């Protein structure tokens, strides 16, 4: 009961306080000379957001960079030892390799299937239902998706009845059942985890690509056909180039998603059998190994991997602003 009251106070109280704050700033501004008002006001409006952004994102990021050069208790400087550990010891390198596989495969899978669905479903009578089917997993948590796919990948020894969907299919065609999540040959288990995320994220790519695809003028495609272009040529020479900027946007999002991959790995294997990823290794170091310095170093490595995407986004944003 207490909690309901607290939550109600927060849900209604915080907006009320914020509205009161903005109203109060306007009263305060009345005493400020007319000419200074326009210069002061924006900062008063920005203040709550800037303070929160600083406290929860900017300051901690700087602090984490500092901690990454310190020991596990944050009491002494250790130079680059935490980074050396990551790039020489087993778990770090293995996770790094997996993240590269994640990055390539998740991006390619979601782009290819997303593009295929966007193009193939365009104009069919069941387009709306088809899109909803691909889109819906996006509403589901990584944890729930992990659970759904645990039932897909479930394994029983040969001879026992296979209750997992995939192994039932595999044994039906005469192959012996595969313990999907424990086989690290060719990193099979990592591919199985990536498949779960592909299932979750394909709808994201599909929606964005579909919006761009529908924006391609029919006349353009018709003109090419009249000139004798085959369907393959139309797709390669007209559709793909026109979709390229959109595909780049989807790709950047998927690259970041792959680098940050966590829930599915944490829930399905927790990194066992060489399926570790950077984000989960960081949590491991922080809570299981109590290695604050190493955890910080891993976080910084993750951040550095994302910086190119950040710069790409900023440049794209500035290009958009220029034509605004």
């Amino acid at each position: 009961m207490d909690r309901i009251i607290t939550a109600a106070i927060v849900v209604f109280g915080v907006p009320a306080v914020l509205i009161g704050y903005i109203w109060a700033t306007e009263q305060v501004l009345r005493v400020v000379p007319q000419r200074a008002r326009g210069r002061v006001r924006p900062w008063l409006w920005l203040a709550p957001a800037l303070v929160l952004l600083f406290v929860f994102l900017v300051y901690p990021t700087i602090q984490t960079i500092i901690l990454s050069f310190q020991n596990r208790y944050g009491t002494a400087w250790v130079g680059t030892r935490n980074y050396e550990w990551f790039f020489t010891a087993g778990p770090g390198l293995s996770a790094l390799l997996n993240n590269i596989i994640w990055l390539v495969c998740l991006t390619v899978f979601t782009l290819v299937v997303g593009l295929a669905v966007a193009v193939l479903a365009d104009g069919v009578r069941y387009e709306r239902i088809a899109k909803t089917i691909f889109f819906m997993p996006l509403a589901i948590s990584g944890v729930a998706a992990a659970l759904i796919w645990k039932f897909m990948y479930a394994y029983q020894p040969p001879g026992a009845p296979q209750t997992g969907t995939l192994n039932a299919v595999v044994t039906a065609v005469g192959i012996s059942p595969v313990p999907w999540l424990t086989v690290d040959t060719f990193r099979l288990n990592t591919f199985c985890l990536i498949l779960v995320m592909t299932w979750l994220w394909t709808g994201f790519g599909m929606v964005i690509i579909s919006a761009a695809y529908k924006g391609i003028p029919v006349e353009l495609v018709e003109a090419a056909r009249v000139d004798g272009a085959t369907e393959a040529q139309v797709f390669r020479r007209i559709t793909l180039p026109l979709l390229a900027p959109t595909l780049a946007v989807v790709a950047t999002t998927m690259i970041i998603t792959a680098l940050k991959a966590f829930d599915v790995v944490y829930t399905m294997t927790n990194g066992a059998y060489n399926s570790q990823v950077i984000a989960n290794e960081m949590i491991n170091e922080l809570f299981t190994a109590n290695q604050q310095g190493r955890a910080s170093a891993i976080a910084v490595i993750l951040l550095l991997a994302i910086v190119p995407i950040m710069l790409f986004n900023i440049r794209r944003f500035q290009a958009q602003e220029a034509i605004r």
Partner: protein
Amino acid sequence: MSTAVPDLTTTGGKVEVVGTRRGVGRLPVHVVMALLMLLWLVPSIGLLVNSFRGQQDFATTGWWAALLPPKDLSLENYAHVLAEQGLGANFVNSLFISIPATVIPIFVAAFAAYAFAWMSFPGRNILFVAVVGLLVVPLQTTFVPILQLFGPKGLHINGTFLAVWLAHTGYGLPFAVYLLRNFMGGLPREVFESAAIDGASPVSAFFRLALPMTVPAIASLAIFQFLFVWNDLLVALIFIGTNTANQPLTQTLAGLVSSFGSGLQYLAAAGFIAMVLPVLVFLALQRYFVRGIVAGSVKG
């Protein structure tokens, strides 16, 4: 950015005109689409069917066996999970976490977005570019310092709802400010100019004009933030941690999945309970969700 994006929900019944963007024969298209759709549906259907099955069936057959008679399906698993395993409490926790963590950042962001869109001040562009940069900062780089800030030597709020509300507000802000500012910036300039000429203060211009016109973007944002928080595992693991009384559904569910093996029939039901609210929200408000995705796709 917001120009002529066809709406996912309105394109379904579109009549085929003479020309099409694609000329591939119809039959292969339907076959490929049918296969892909089946592939995407089977995992969820498997879970749904499993959640109604008994322990006996689980050990010996897969979910597909329940499609043929004799059907032995019941709601028993749900009753057990909600009552005896206390998953109902986790469901309530998820609500307690999600609703404030959705409402607060929207309000904070709306004021900032308006300032970015309609007030001029030195450093405006650089500051907003910084927000765009913050969009992709991995949450991992913030955990250690914020854990200390929230810890016994700081605010002493680790494990409480307040900790996750604050964290989600901070983490959600870059996207919220970005989305709302882009939308507000696209509102017609004349509206605000004539309001200023009529002597309206920025406060009344914001509440009477900007805010009502921004409702579609706020709706998109609210759905995003709600789904993000409801589905979040990472932030809950860090800031709720071992305080079982406050854990959301995702955290409890993750714990149950890790010990996958016994009580599978209950696990299936628990999974469905965790999915039902976000899926309903999603189906009801799909249109806003799609708009938000297409408009905000810089986000990572």
